[in-house]
């Protein structure tokens, strides 16, 4: 049974490659029925092939997305889509295989569920207005088989049931990272082979498996934003308000502005007020140091062009009255201008990793090695860098007690790490001194 299924999928891949892009779409029917008057009528020919001549190619769009995996020290792997628009202004999104997978694993965050309708290949279901689990589960099974064609699936899905695994991913019971390093390696390699075809082979040989359709009103949420054609269509819809004269043109509003939140770091000496080097302190008191780091929210400010409508006396050219004048007489609404309305979105941001350390300042090191060594021949640096600890919590506050400072001088309390980033901003590295304190030597009254 397993061999026959694998044979089926191998045959499917061969057929897909020869047909440029796999042309089967719905669960039943071959070729499936696609309503020529529906949204997909602009996209798919009656024989099931894609009507590229009818589509405007928006090219490949890449963008950071917080639901994609993050590489430590680098940031998020970009999401990649091929974007097309239809004559009626709909946007068709064709994610690469790896992007599609992480999209479907995070359907709300990625906008997958926001698509008005989707169309998948390889026996997957078509879901109008609601992306059912059946379609994605089928996708998961397809990926499992795809992976199986190059590797032993039993190492990836020990229970032999890839579909069940993807159902669990989608229901939130588990996540893709529970596949483990070796399983995810095999799986991602198979996906990457499909994704890579887009960039290396151009448009002709892509093995896209899924299409998502967004109507013009949702173009602002689609990667790459609205095309000029879609904007014109939206404005024409607004202009259809009852009026006698052509309304004024919409204002050109300012571009969105993203203001990253401040990274707040603080390092403080708690006790004692005048710490002594531990070598001269029989009690080895050391120092108590407090560190804290947090990130303020990132603010995205954007503007929308909103029509200013007034009620004008009498009916419009079509004889319609739809408002009342201050004197109670019937009137009609007319667009008399446009306002740029400011909106703000707040995105909380976390610390993904932070570490704290004590570092003797370079001036103090020089002082020990040059001046102090005149009084104490052979003076040397005992332990000028002390790692105190690290955290992966969203905001970090911690006190480190009795840190053993063996060298006299000024110590920097350093806090370094990386923020998590937000859907509208990249992760940021931070580091450097967040506070300073002195450690004293009995014989020396002045430190440097």
């Amino acid at each position, binding site marked *: 049974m397993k061999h026959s299924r694998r044979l089926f999928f191998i045959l499917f891949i061969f057929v897909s490659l020869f047909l440029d892009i796999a042309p089967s779409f719905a669960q039943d029917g071959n070729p499936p029925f696609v309503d020529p008057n529906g949204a997909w009528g602009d996209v798919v020919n009656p024989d099931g092939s894609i009507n590229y001549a009818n589509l405007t190619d928006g090219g490949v769009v890449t963008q950071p997305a917080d639901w994609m*995996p993050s*590489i430590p*020290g*680098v940031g998020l792997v970009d999401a990649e889509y091929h974007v097309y628009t239809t004559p009626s202004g709909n946007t068709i999104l064709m994610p690469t295989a790896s992007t599609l997978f992480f999209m479907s694993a995070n359907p709300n965050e990625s906008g997958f569920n926001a698509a008005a309708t989707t169309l998948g290949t390889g026996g997957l279901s078509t879901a109008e207005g609601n992306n059912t689990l059946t379609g994605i589960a089928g996708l998961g099974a397809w990926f499992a088989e795809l992976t199986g064609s190059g590797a032993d699936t039993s190492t990836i899905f020990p229970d032999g049931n890839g579909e069940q695994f993807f159902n669990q991913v989608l229901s939130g019971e588990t996540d893709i990272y529970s596949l483990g*390093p*070796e399983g995810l390696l095999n799986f*991602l390699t198979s996906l990457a082979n499909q994704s890579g075809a887009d960039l290396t082979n151009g448009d002709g040989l892509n093995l896209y498996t899924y299409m998502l359709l967004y109507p013009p009103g949702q173009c602002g949420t689609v990667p790459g934003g609205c095309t000029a054609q879609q904007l014109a269509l939206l404005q024409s819809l607004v202009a259809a308000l009852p009026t006698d004269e052509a309304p004024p043109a919409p204002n050109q509003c300012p571009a969105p502005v993203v203001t990253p939140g401040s990274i707040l770091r603080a390092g403080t000496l708690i006790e004692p007020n005048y710490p002594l080097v531990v070598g001269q302190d029989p009690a080895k008191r050391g120092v108590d140091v407090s560190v804290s780091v947090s990130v303020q929210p990132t603010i995205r400010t954007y503007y929308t062009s909103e029509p200013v409508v007034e009620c004008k006396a009498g009916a419009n050219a079509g004889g319609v009255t739809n408002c009342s004048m201050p004197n109670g007489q019937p009137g009609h609404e007319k667009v008399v201008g446009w306002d740029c309305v400011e909106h703000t979105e707040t995105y909380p941001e976390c610390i993904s990793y932070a570490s704290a350390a004590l570092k003797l300042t370079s001036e103090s090191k020089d002082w020990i090695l040059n001046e102090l060594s005149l009084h104490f021949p052979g003076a040397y640096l005992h332990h000028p860098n002390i790692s105190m600890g690290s955290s992966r919590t969203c905001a970090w506050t911690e006190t480190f007690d009795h840190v053993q400072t063996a060298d006299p001088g000024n110590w920097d309390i350093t806090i370094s790490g990386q923020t998590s980033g937000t859907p509208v901003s990249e992760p940021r590295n931070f580091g450097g001194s967040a506070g300073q304190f002195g450690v004293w030597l009995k014989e020396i009254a002045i430190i440097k």
Partner: protein
Amino acid sequence: MEITISRNSTVRTFTFAIIILAVIGGGYFTWKSGLLDSLFTPTQTVSAAPADEPAMKSMTAMYSPSGERAEWETQVCIGMTEKGCELFRAMFANPFWKSSLIGKTTSITFIKIADTLEDGSQVWKTEIADSEATLPVYIHVTQNEAGQWLLNRVLFAQEAAKYENQ
């Protein structure tokens, strides 16, 4: 009828029983503790100088992207498995090449073996450091026939959290 019990034969029998019990008990303990498996499983250890392992050299190259991209990718792949290199070129190279790491010199330090997986591959904890910050990075490595450790891939932050919290 007279029954004679020899003292020597009693001691011999008792000693023999003790030895049999000790052998059975020892065998059971060896089996339960997994020592038996380890006797028949090739020992996989990190060499005395982990920094010299191909995987670590790949990491150093990966986190210090510079020069021509094709040459840099080749340099990174030298210490990787075939599958790891394939995935690196398809999914990792672009984010690295577009990152703020370009032109930076980053040092990589081996910290410890974080996990040994069923297939014998391992997860290593390493630390990357530049002039400003240090960051723990977990990597998945596989030993080749020559006993060298090759890099499969850098674990994503979402996966690394599992090891960081252990």
